[in-house]
């Protein structure tokens, strides 16, 4: 579904991404692992068109999206849930969710209603908080809101940037269960994580990014069994 070939991104003189290639097959959860500064978030931002690319090609559903503008990419069906949640703190939960539909102009009023109902079924806690402003939610609820807001544009693929960031382990588990349910709904998921053991527990396939290059790749089982991964990321 998503294919990345020889992607390169520079920040000034620094090469943040140095020629990586990977694929995200339809209906799977693929995870991109790596430490701080490995280039994970930059990879996501270059897919969604938020940063300039120095080279390489990105293809989605057979279309070259390398030089597309962010709103076009959203329109094609890629939702990006940015790192640090970035919900709209002084808008209500309801308004946050509705704002999620702005990028997809194909949505009819009726479809928007259905999508809203879908999110509220998936995230029942948001239904209780519909009238509250986003800033008053707990960290976990804010993360749920950020994911739900991304799903409101009815994407084919959703990219999650560190959904476990700063959350209590029990909340992280809840969120990861939800990610599995999102895949069951037929969406493709590209998940970025530092929490490798949690990510590999739900992912189908994984890539390990080190200093802007892909260091190891394989199915989740292979990665979980890999000695190097164990030592560096699983703390075994």
């Amino acid at each position, binding site marked *: 579904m998503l294919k990345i070939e020889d992607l390169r991104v520079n920040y000034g003189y620094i090469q943040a991404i140095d020629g990586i290639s990977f694929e995200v097959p339809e209906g799977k959860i693929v995870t991109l692992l790596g430490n701080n500064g490995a280039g994970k978030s930059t990879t996501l931002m270059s897919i969604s068109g938020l940063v300039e690319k120095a080279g390489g090609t990105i293809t989605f559903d057979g279309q070259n999206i390398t030089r597309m503008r962010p709103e076009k990419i959203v329109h094609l069906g890629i939702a990006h849930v940015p790192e640090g949640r970035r919900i709209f703190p002084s808008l209500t939960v*309801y308004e946050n969710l509705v704002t999620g539909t702005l990028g997809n102009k194909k949505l009819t009023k009726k479809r928007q209603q259905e999508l809203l109902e879908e999110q509220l079924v998936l995230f029942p806690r948001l239904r209780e908080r519909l009238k509250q402003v986003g800033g008053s939610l707990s960290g976990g609820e804010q993360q749920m809101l950020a994911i739900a807001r991304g799903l409101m544009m009815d994407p084919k693929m959703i990219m999650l940037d560190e959904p476990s960031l700063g959350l209590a382990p029990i909340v992280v588990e809840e969120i990861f269960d939800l990610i599995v349910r999102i895949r069951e709904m037929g969406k493709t998921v590209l998940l970025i994580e530092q929490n490798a053991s949690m990510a590999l527990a739900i992912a189908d396939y994984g890539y390990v990014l080190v200093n802007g290059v892909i260091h190891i790749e394989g199915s989740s089982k292979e990665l979980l069994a890999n000695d190097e991964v164990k030592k560096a990321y699983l703390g075994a």
Partner: protein
Amino acid sequence: MSKIKAFVGKHRSLMLTAALVFAIVFPLFGFKKSMVRIFCRILMYFTLAGSLNITNGYSGQTSLGHAGFYCIGAYVMAILTTRFQISFWPVLLLSGIGAAVAGLIISVPTLRLKGIYLSIITLGASEVIRIIALNWEGVTGGSFGIKDIPRPTFFGFTFDSPLKFYYLFLGVAVIFLLISYRLIHSRVGRSWMSIRENELAAKSLGVRTAPAKMMNFAYGAFWAGIIGGIYAVYVQYIDSAVFSLDEGFNIMSMIIIGGQGTLIGPIVGSIVVNGLTELLRPIGVWRFVMYAALIIVMMWFRPQGLMGESNSILAGAKIKMRKAGKTGGKKEAIS
């Protein structure tokens, strides 16, 4: 207290209609002309502050240059009606469009600027506009200004008294409110607010932030231009000194006191600031010290402004407005 709040929240359109009827009827009870002039000022500044609130309050682009757009509107009106004898109504539209174009011109190079940097540029732009008005003598009359600006007429009816102008200002204020209300609750308004809240998130959701910001600036400037145009025919004489930075800050103090990002805030801000101006007239220039003190006290106790998100009585109306979708029931309405 909470009962009153719930009542205001529940019967919002009723309350608004009542307020409008009150605004239409009460000046007829034989106020002195000087008093009616104060009412005119309040309504005029309401639209002016409201239009600044569109940029500062809804898209979070802190502009300090509103006096500049106001200035352009006034000069467009003054020049076209005195030199070319064009009638008031088409020129009024041109006043708005002129200011909107200036807004666009300023917004394009500043798209990437945020916060204080944007504020400084808009502040500079406002001064540039005023200084051009002061020095381009051939067109603007320089420091002599433009006098004898003709009164507007409407099918043989001439606006020649403060009371008649009161209704003109009221009409413009109502039109401004209605259009802005619709706009803010549309896709456009939602994209403005998403930019204010978090620009990167807005982009990642596919909001086209550049055109949204440009349109926001132009729309706010348009209404400042309209008010400038009416101001010119109301006082019949303009010169550049009126459109100083002080005026810009005066307008801004109204939205800070009233509450940014609410439609009702500028009304309250305009009433409070203009009311204080009259009350404090006896103490002369010391009243500016009072404004400063008031703004500091506001920042301390109510940084969101009198009408901001709060538990005050009038905020009851706001909560209803923000809710839009009803919980409890099965359907969540998308507005």
